[in-house]
Each structure stands twice: as C-alpha cells, then as structure tokens.
C-alpha cells in the first residue's frame, strides 16, 4: 500500500504554518522513522494523516485515492494508528481491545461476530499473546500493552501503520522488542511510519529516516546516509558524532567525549 503526501500545509491559527508544503511518499515494506524536535510538527503531521485535522493546502493519497474523498471507515481500512499508550476510561479485556480493531469492518449498528473474533485471535497469536485474551488491559505490563495495540492494528487489516513514539514508555528490552516487531511487520508488507525521539534506535532499525524542522521536510535518506552526514549536529543544535560498532550505530554527543 502506497501513501502519498502532496504539498501538505497546515496552520492552527491561519498565520503560522505548522506544516509547510510537505511532499513525500511511503511504499509498502518501508520502515520510515520521522524525527523532529519538540514542536517540529510531527504530531500535527500524524493528525493530518489520520484525518483528525484538515490541511489548508495539499492532500494525502492512498494508492492514488485522496483521503478527502474517503469516509472515516474507508480511511480506517487503509491506515491504523498505534498511540504511545492507550488510556481508555474503562478497562476492557485484551480480546475486546483487539476486537476494536475490526470496528471498520462491521456495521455501525452491529457488534463483532465470530468472524471478527477469529481475526482478533489470529492477531493475538501473531504476537504470541493469545493467552492474555481474557486479561484486563489495566493488569498488563507496558510491553504487553504495546503488543496488544500492535495486535489491534493488525486486526484492523490496514496496510499503513502509524506509530506515535511507540517506545517512549517502555523499558529498554521492550523498546528493542517493539522495534523488532515493527520491522517484522514491514517484512510482511506493512508500511510503518514511526515517530520517535530516539535517534540511535532510528538509525539502527529504520529503512528510511525523515527529518522535520519548523514544519518542513528537511531531510529524507537512509540511516547510513544520515549517519555519515554532518546534518544531525545542525538539526539538533548540538555536536553529535555517529560511530559504527559491529554494524550498529552509536550516537555520541560531543560534550561527553
């Protein structure tokens, strides 16, 4: 599934553009990390992609079809959103939470049936958490909750997965596992677009990195190209050297050298 952004421009107040003419596209199987400092426009970009905000200019297309011509349900069949953390007002069972992924497949006046339950169960199996099906989500660890959200996105059967800082609330081991899971999903043909503040993880897991600064797309390249460029230091306003050790990138801020 191909996602294309054309000249996307968005402003909250009609004066300052938070997104300023962003154009790019995301192909099937790509693991793209969106990097940007606080307030760069990452969240606004994601909200535009999800249809929560309407751009003043430009459009988002999926396989050639404009999002503005699609209903909310049609969009949900194309693009799934995995938040940092899901905090529902009430705690549901893991199976019910994953079943929520099938909402766009059932009528608004209906509820999931056997077919959807099977889909949800298969999604749980994919992440080896089927044994958690009956547990309440508020009794799970952060890592398990992240897996449930991934399973929900898989049950949604959307080709494009939008991850909003998926590792920010996890311990180190779960961060690595989550990124590994995202990589595995892209190998299955999903298009993953991931926002993060962790530069090192972006360099080591992504197949492509996009840098956003002041609402503009200022760099789009492979991790290897970015690691060898001097752009990172000016992007973060801090001297950074990127070293390679046994095929892994390590980012070292100059002050600590």
């Amino acid at each position, binding site marked *: 599934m191909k996602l294309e952004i054309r000249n996307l421009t968005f402003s909250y107040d009609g004066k300052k553009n938070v997104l300023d003419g962003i154009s790019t596209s995301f192909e099937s199987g790509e693991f793209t990390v969106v990097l940007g400092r606080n307030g760069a426009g990452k969240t606004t970009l994601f*909200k535009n992609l*999800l*249809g*929560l905000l309407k751009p003043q200019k430009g459009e988002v297309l999926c396989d050639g079809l404009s999002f503005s011509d699609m209903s*909310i*349900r049609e*969009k*949900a*069949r194309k*693009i*799934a*959103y995995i*938040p940092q953390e*899901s*905090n*529902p*007002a*009430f*705690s*549901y*069972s893991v*199976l*019910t939470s994953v079943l*929520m*992924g099938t*909402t*766009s497949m*059932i009528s*608004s*006046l*209906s*509820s*999931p049936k*056997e077919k959807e*339950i*099977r889909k949800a*169960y*298969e999604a749980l*199996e994919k992440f080896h958490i*089927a044994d958690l*099906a*009956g547990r309440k989500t508020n009794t799970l660890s952060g890592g398990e909750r992240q897996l449930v959200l991934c399973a929900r996105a898989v049950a*949604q059967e959307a080709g494009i997965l*939008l991850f909003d800082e998926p590792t920010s609330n996890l311990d180190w081991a779960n961060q690595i596992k989550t990124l590994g899971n995202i990589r595995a999903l892209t190998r299955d043909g999903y298009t993953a677009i991931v926002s993060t503040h962790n530069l090192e993880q972006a360099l080591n897991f992504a197949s492509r990195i996009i840098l956003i600064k002041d609402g503009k797309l200022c760099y789009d390249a492979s991790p290897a190209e970015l690691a060898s460029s001097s752009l990172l230091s000016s992007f973060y306003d801090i001297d950074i050297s990127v070293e390679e050790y046994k095929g892994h990138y390590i980012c070292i801020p100059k002050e600590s050298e």
Partner: protein
Amino acid sequence: MQKGGEIKDTVKFRVKERPYVLPLLLLVFILTFFISFALGRYPVDPITLVKILLSRILPLEETWSSQAETVVFNIRLPRVLIGAFIGAGLSLSGLVYQGIFQNPMVSPDVLGSTSGAAAGSALGILAGMGYFSISAMSFLGGITAVLIVLMIARRVPGQPVLGLVLSGIMISSLFNSLLSFIKLVADTDDVLPQITYYLIGSLSSTRNSDLAACALLITVPAIVLYLIRWNLNVMTLGEEEAVSLGVNTKAIRFTAVVCATLMTAVSTAAAGMIGWIGLVIPHLVRMSIGCDYRKTIPATILMGSSFLMLVDTVSRNLTTSEIPIGILTSFIGAPFFLYLIIREGKKT
C-alpha cells in the same frame, strides 16, 4: 496456530465474564417489580396480585375486591412502571455520559439537562401553568440547556469533550441561578412550596400521561443506544483512537448525548430531580459485569429500574408520610460518591 473450532472454544472459555450476572439481575428485577406492587398503604398479597394482573388477559374468577383492583391498576401499576422507566433512563444516561466523556465521575446533569429541566418547570409553576404545560416546560428547559451547551462546545473543536463538560458546568450554573431567581420572586405561601416539592424528586404526583411519555422517550433512546453499543465501547478510547478505528465520533457523540438528554429531561419532567442514580448504578454495574457496553446497557437497565422501584417502595412504606425519593437517593448516593473518591485515590 490454532484452527477454527479450537479458537472459538478457547475464546469463549477465556473471555466469558460472569455469565450469571445478567440472569441474576433479571431475577432481582422481577422480584422487585412484584414486591413494589404488593407493598404500600393498601397491601396486596402476591397471589392476589398475580391473579389481578392476569385477569386482564385470562378469564379468571374475581376473588378480590374492586378496591384491590383499583389500587393495582390505577395507582401501583403506573407508579411502579414509571419508577422502572425513570430508574433505567437516569442510570443509562449516566452510563452513556461516562463513556462519551471518558470520565467515570460524570453524571446525567453534566450537560445542564437536569438544571435546565428544573428551571423550566419552576418557570411553568411560577407562570401558573397547568400540569401538562409544566411538564412540557421542564422538557423544553432540559433540551434548551443541552442545545446551548452543544452550540458552545462547537466553538472548541480541538477539545470536544472538554468543551462539552466545561460549557455544561457553566450552563448548569446559569440555569441554577435562574431557578434561584424564580424561587426568590415566587409567592412564599403558595408557589414556592409547590416548586420546592416538585423539584425534590418524587413519584407520588406522577400521572398516566407521564408514564406514556417516559415509556416512549426512554425506550426509544435505549434501543438506539443499544444499537450503537460497540461504537460506544470504542469511543471510550478517546477521539484520536476512535476516529483511527473508523468511528464517526461526531455522529456517535451527538446521538448518544441526544438520547441520554432525552431520557434525563423526560425523567425530570415526570418526577423532579432524582440525583445520584446516574452515578451510582453504572459504577455498580461495571463492578459486577465489566465495562463492555454490550453487557452494561442491559445490566444498567435492569439494575437501575430495580433500584428505583425498591427505593420508591421504601419511600412509600418507611414512614406514614411519604419520603420524597430524591432525598433517599441522595442519602445513598452521596456516601457512595465518597467511597468512589477514596477508591480512586487508593488506585493512584
């Protein structure tokens, strides 16, 4: 990976949560229904009661007094049924508001519908209107308050839930001020006591027309809410996630708010302000059966109606002069709210 039937069995085995709760609530509902009929100033024994009720559909020999039949059909039947409808309506409103606003502490008067209805009916009494006009004014007041809240909330598109809750508080306060003003200018000998007693919350002055209005305006919204039960579940995740999962949040929120408000307004129009039930019952339901709207909607209807029928029976029988039901629900609701605050505090 497991196959077909095996998956089905595993899922059903693991996820079936307390399957006995709904049948138990149904049993409690039936028992309460008959107890409410039987008890009162003119007691009717259960066997006679069943006979009287069945006499309308079966050719039974009349072994009871005509007085008993009058009590059952003309006094108890409308009152018990109206208690059941209002109990179900107010509880269901609370359940829906709490999910839509993602806040378990929210109650039906959050959008100002109760205050609006109270001010409307007080205005009707002050203007010397007849019974039907007062009910209509009450209903209009409730709906007007919610429409104003919805209009203000549209001005806060980025924060739809916060906009609704804050404008609800503001409009409630405005209508409460209007109510106080009406009380201030009302004749202290005649009109003021009438307003006070009307608003205190009681089923003693309800009429058959109230029953018809409650039956229609609580049953229809309840059916609509049950139809959107799955979307109500997804709405509790919040705006961003619900939209990304394919829910038309604006349409669902509008439908849910209108349905819940209709139920609250018609209840207030019929019986005055009966507080706390919309907060207490949804909590008890979630504690007993979980949070899934597929189960909580029928459970809330059963528990809410049983609760109000029971409280009304107590209010009719506890003392020689009837205690208004609003006072009793407050006696139960206020300590329960305290318990919830302490419970939430311990969790965090």
